[in-house]
């Protein structure tokens, strides 16, 4: 989207503008009224539709705003269990994917354009295919993405009937079976845990990014935050222990974070279990080495890990039944088993955890592993491979050499959104529909089913997986809605009130009564099982939990496998889901590419993350180009020092270095899948790092924030809960009125203000994307960011505090502070930025001449300038996403956060038309709406009972750079960390 060519485009676009003056009259536009206006549509006012976004098979409920028939913004559906009204970066950015001009537009066979009918002829009733009628499907294999859709499930079942010999595989590079395998090992059947964080006082996350990863993370973040938002010092707060290698959003909020190699998390878990079971916790305070429970062999009892484990164990013991231990998807089943055991012992099961039957189709069965397919391919047993969604050629473990295998398949079909790496190797390429264009259903993590309804007529044509399956069922394609409607009619047994039921389901976006029931498991049983587990095969040995010995990291299956058998001190390579492009499927999304990584602040690419100490040991400078050598694979990418990262481990994001036909994604970052191995999907030892030289040009790390520290300045304030209670007034220097020569401007009526609670900000950046979508903020591309010209109105500042070795991170969303004594205003020569009567710092784009004086005088540097005509970077398709309530800024003007003034004015007009005053909490800004943890509160200070007014009464309130006397309307609540009382043992 923003390459060299586009730079020229920007430069060129100027020509049109050059010499434009104020008094030119533009040509008459035309008006095209409906011929028949749909009753629900009121041109000029947005309509909201409930739908659901499927991601790796699980649904997240959404409300999508539609303006005159074009979806413009994605928001969370408060009624949906996985959303609760919040929306993450993927959900919100998916709307840009809908309009992506690079999406596959034509159905092709070996490059030649074909019609759907041709496709049906090839595989449908008169199929000439090898497996075709009346065959039994011998040689037919379908490679699908994991799905939980009841409709799809039923179709799959029918396809299986029709072709008993047909093979099925469900693959997604990020999904892991550890959790279910562990459950199977422990409970004898695959079960899926659903956590209730509201009920947990102590949470221990073992390499689990519960706040930002997984199909229920939005809900978990909300629940977690609800137990953390301090109304007053005396209020209670949950405590979070995190053991992880990289720095995740969860690590950011950790009260006690242990940076430990991914390979050693199992040891930590084991030691934890040991202490908790030993029951000695609490009793033997400080009675030093508890049995042999010294984690991290070779580090000695001094190692901080011991302290962390003891503190966690003590807390867990003290909060039996009100605690929670979670293991991350990256960890092998072993760790999950230990977690289950811990939860069982502490009696958390049934209290903070309930188990339900798995939601995905076939989940827990071998069809969820790519291995059988790969073997079949190697054996040449597959004659027709149908790949629906995903991008296996790109994201299968490198040692499968899937691309090579695929080439050998005689008949290859791909159905997906893009002409990606996989499409390039297939004869048949069938464009798929975006979820915002299609009918369907999907289930959330807790089993709740919800409907997917289209917001717009297919832009580029295409079919859904259901349509595709119907082709193989030799059935004529029926109307998608009809199909869905019928399937649910029979599922619910019809009934006269079905139409009502259906309408309601569509409106609310949730199908009532579909949430999976809890499966009763007995905690005791679990513990017993853990202990009595036979040592067969890769199964962990019984003793491994016992006090007598700590498992070697080498024992770990799944995680390390053979590869992990390495001498300590060797380097571990660790892969992670990218917080922006996920597994690579969003790599063509400009918003996400330009979204700074929550912790590293890197845009447009990935890097080898490693701790400064390890870097020093390897002689790798920050920003050097390094070569990773791992089990025969090589990968070049820039190194990036990440304080707080585990030593002797290198983390790399998946999803970059794409080679498909997607213009934005192509050539951005390095493809870490090339190093991924099937036996060690998430981490493994034996990595070598070689410094190549200084990274230049396209390989350079591009970051929106170079600095890690606050340079000792009081910007993002942090205190411990104890400290806060001891001295609740610790922010008093940073608030209150400042002496001023001017008498205060008198404000009346609605007075807008915002309060941001740093205690619950994970840095997930949902607000940043929300702002981008709501306010038509352009993407400036790698070059632009490299030059320091990113346009985000709302950025999240990340600062490390405390000890350099074991840093804490505090996230500070930074946006226009709407200062009452705004420094930007009095320096504007043309009155382009002034104050409104309701206390907004207004920015009038059409008056701005672009002196940039305001930006220079803005102490918060939240103003953004249109260095070029960025509008030309948007394709006509992407223009359809633009919010008609917000001006698209011209070249050469300044812009900034307006507190979503378009929403304020719309609400104000609505209220006054209805002849009432505007409520203090009636207006919701885009960022506030998206925030999963409700860290952002917005409203009128004029209304003493509004949420924001109440937040202003908290003692930990303060304003940034208060000493300057700018009197910001955006204020912050200092971050409170809930450290365990006497951690020092």
């Amino acid at each position, binding site marked *: 989207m923003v390459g060299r060519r586009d730079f020229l485009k920007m430069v060129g676009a100027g020509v049109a503008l050059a010499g434009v003056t104020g008094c030119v009259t533009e040509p008459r536009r035309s008006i095209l009224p409906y*011929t028949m206006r749909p009753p629900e549509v009121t041109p000029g006012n947005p309509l909201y539709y409930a739908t659901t976004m499927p991601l790796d098979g699980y649904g997240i409920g959404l409300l999508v705003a539609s303006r005159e028939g074009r979806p413009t913004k994605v928001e969370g559906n408060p009624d949906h269990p996985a959303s609760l009204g919040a929306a993450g970066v993927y959900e919100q950015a998916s709307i840009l994917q809908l309009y992506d001009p690079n999406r596959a537009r034509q159905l092709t066979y070996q490059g030649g354009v074909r019609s759907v009918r041709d496709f049906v002829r090839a595989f449908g009733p008169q199929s000439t295919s090898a497996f075709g009628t009346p065959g039994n499907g011998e040689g037919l294999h379908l490679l699908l993405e994991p799905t939980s859709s009841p409709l799809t499930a039923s179709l799959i079942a029918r396809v299986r009937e029709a072709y008993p010999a047909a093979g099925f595989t469900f693959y997604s590079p990020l999904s892991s079976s550890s959790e279910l395998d562990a459950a199977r090992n422990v409970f004898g059947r695959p079960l899926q845990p659903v956590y209730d964080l509201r009920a947990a006082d102590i949470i221990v996350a073992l390499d689990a990014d519960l706040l930002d990863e997984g199909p229920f993370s939005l809900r978990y973040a909300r629940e977690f935050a609800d137990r953390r938002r301090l109304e007053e010092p005396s209020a209670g707060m949950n405590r979070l222990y995190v053991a992880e290698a990289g720095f995740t959003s969860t690590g950011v909020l950790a009260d006690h974070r242990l940076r430990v190699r991914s390979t050693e998390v199992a040891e930590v878990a084991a030691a934890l279990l040991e202490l908790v079971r030993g029951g000695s916790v609490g009793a033997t305070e400080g009675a030093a080495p508890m049995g042999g429970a010294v984690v991290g062999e070779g580090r000695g009892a001094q190692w901080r890990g011991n302290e962390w484990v003891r503190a966690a164990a003590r807390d867990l013991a003290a909060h039996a039944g009100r605690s929670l231990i979670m293991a991350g998807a990256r960890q092998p089943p072993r760790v999950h088993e230990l977690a289950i055991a811990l939860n069982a012992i502490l009696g958390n099961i049934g209290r903070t955890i309930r188990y339900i039957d798995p939601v995905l189709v076939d989940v827990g069965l071998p069809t969820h592993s790519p291995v059988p397919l790969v073997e079949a391919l190697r054996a040449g047993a597959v004659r027709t491979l149908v790949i629906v969604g995903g991008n296996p050629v790109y994201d299968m473990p490198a040692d499968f050499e899937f691309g090579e295998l695929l080439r050998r398949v005689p008949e290859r079909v791909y159905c997906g959104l893009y002409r990606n790496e996989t499409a390039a190797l297939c004869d048949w390429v069938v464009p798929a529909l975006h979820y915002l264009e299609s009918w369907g259903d999907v289930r959330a993590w807790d089993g709740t089913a919800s409907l997917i309804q289209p917001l717009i007529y297919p832009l580029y044509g295409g079919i859904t997986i259901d349509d595709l399956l119907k082709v193989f069922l030799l059935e004529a394609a029926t109307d998608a809605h009809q199909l869905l409607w019928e399937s649910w009619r029979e599922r619910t047994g019809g009934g006269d009130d079905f139409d009502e039921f259906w309408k309601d389901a569509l409106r609310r976006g949730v199908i009532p009564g579909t949430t999976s029931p809890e499966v009763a498991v007995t905690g005791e049983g679990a513990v017993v099982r853990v202990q009595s587990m036979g040592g067969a095969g890769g199964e962990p040995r019984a003793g491994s939990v016992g006090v007598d010995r700590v498992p070697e990291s080498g024992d770990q299956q799944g995680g390390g496998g053979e590869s992990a058998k390495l001498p300590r001190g060797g380097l571990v390579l660790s892969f992670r889901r990218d917080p922006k492009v996920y597994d690579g499927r969003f790599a063509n999304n400009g918003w996400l590419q330009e979204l700074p990584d929550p912790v590293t602040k890197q845009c447009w690419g990935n890097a080898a993350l490693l701790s400064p100490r390890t870097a020093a040991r390897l002689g790798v400078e920050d920003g050097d180009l390094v070569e990773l050598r791992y089990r025969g694979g090589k990968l070049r990418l820039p190194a990036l020092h990440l304080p707080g990262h585990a030593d002797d481990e290198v983390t790399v994001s998946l999803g970059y270095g794409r080679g498909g036909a997607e213009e934005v994604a192509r050539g951005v970052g390095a493809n870490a899948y090339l190093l991924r191995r099937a036996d060690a999907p998430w981490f493994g030892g034996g990595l070598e790092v070689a410094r190549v030289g200084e990274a230049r040009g396209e390989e350079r790390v591009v970051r929106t924030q170079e600095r890690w520290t606050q340079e000792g300045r009081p910007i993002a304030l942090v205190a411990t809960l104890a400290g806060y209670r001891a001295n609740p007034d610790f922010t008093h220097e940073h608030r209150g009125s400042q002496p001023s020569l001017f008498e205060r401007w008198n404000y009346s009526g609605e007075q807008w203000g915002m309060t941001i609670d740093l205690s619950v900000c994970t840095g997930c950046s949902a607000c940043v994307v929300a702002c981008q979508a709501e306010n038509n903020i352009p993407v400036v591309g790698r070059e632009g960011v490299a030059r320091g010209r990113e346009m985000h109105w709302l950025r999240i500042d990340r600062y490390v505090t405390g000890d350099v070795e074991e840093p804490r991170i505090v996230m500070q969303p930074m946006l226009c502070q709407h200062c009452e004594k705004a420094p930007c205003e009095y320096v504007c020569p043309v009155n382009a930025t002034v104050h409104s009567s309701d206390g*907004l710092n207004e920015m009038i784009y059409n008056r701005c001449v672009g002196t940039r004086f305001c930006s220079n005088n803005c102490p918060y540097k939240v103003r953004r300038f249109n260095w070029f005509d960025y509008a030309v970077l948007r394709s006509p398709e992407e223009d359809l996403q633009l919010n008609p309530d917000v*001006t698209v800024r011209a070249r050469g003007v300044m812009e900034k956060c307006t507190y979503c003034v378009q929403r304020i004015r719309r609400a104000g007009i609505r209220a*006054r038309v209805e002849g009432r005053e505007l409520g203090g909490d009636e207006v919701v800004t885009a960022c506030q709406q998206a925030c999963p943890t409700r860290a952002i509160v917005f409203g009128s200070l004029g209304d003493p009972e509004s949420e924001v007014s109440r937040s202003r009464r908290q003692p930990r309130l303060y304003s940034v750079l208060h000493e300057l006397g700018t009197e910001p309307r955006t204020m912050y609540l200092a971050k409170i960390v809930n450290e365990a009382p006497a951690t020092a043992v």
Partner: protein
Amino acid sequence: MPALFPRWSDTLLRVGIVGVLAAVLLAVGFAMAWVRTPQITGQFSPLEQPVEFDHRHHVADDGIDCRYCHDLVERSPYAGVPPTERCMNCHNQIWPDSPLLAPVWASYFKNEPIVWRRVHQLPEFVYFDHSIHVNKGVGCESCHGRVDRMARVYQVASLQMGWCLDCHRRPERVLRPVEEITTMGWVPSRPQEELGRELMERYGVRRVTDCTACHR
């Protein structure tokens, strides 16, 4: 030896100097006047429309209320140009085969919109909301003029920012009871200013001159 310059050159130079200065001043003055003329504002020029729709007939003769066609005006930023079906409500009975209605039928059957030309055109960076104005007693006539006397609708007001501000600063000079919103040629029963102030009181009308009231 003769002088370098002839005698008349004096006058020539002086006239020249004065002339140039005068010309500059005049040019500036002229430019300022020019941008206020209909040539720039587009006032008073009826536009050729795809359908020969005569407001005089529909409003004056038939007495159809503005809101029958422009039905969004009270609840949307847009007054709303009626969908074709709206025309058909009457015209499938009245003059169904009038040649003037040919394009309307065409639109109706082909289900293709009639492409009207915009008469009142604000820049993209201006956000005008009809609903708030009509609900607070600003009559259609106040901005659109006597549409009931227009064969082809044309723009009456300059629609320049200064013109907007006049009302926003002194609404009492135009406000009318909401019942009279669509009345053409309405005359206040009492002195406008007095009535206006009372209506401001009643409807809670404020003097809105915040920039973001119109620019977002």
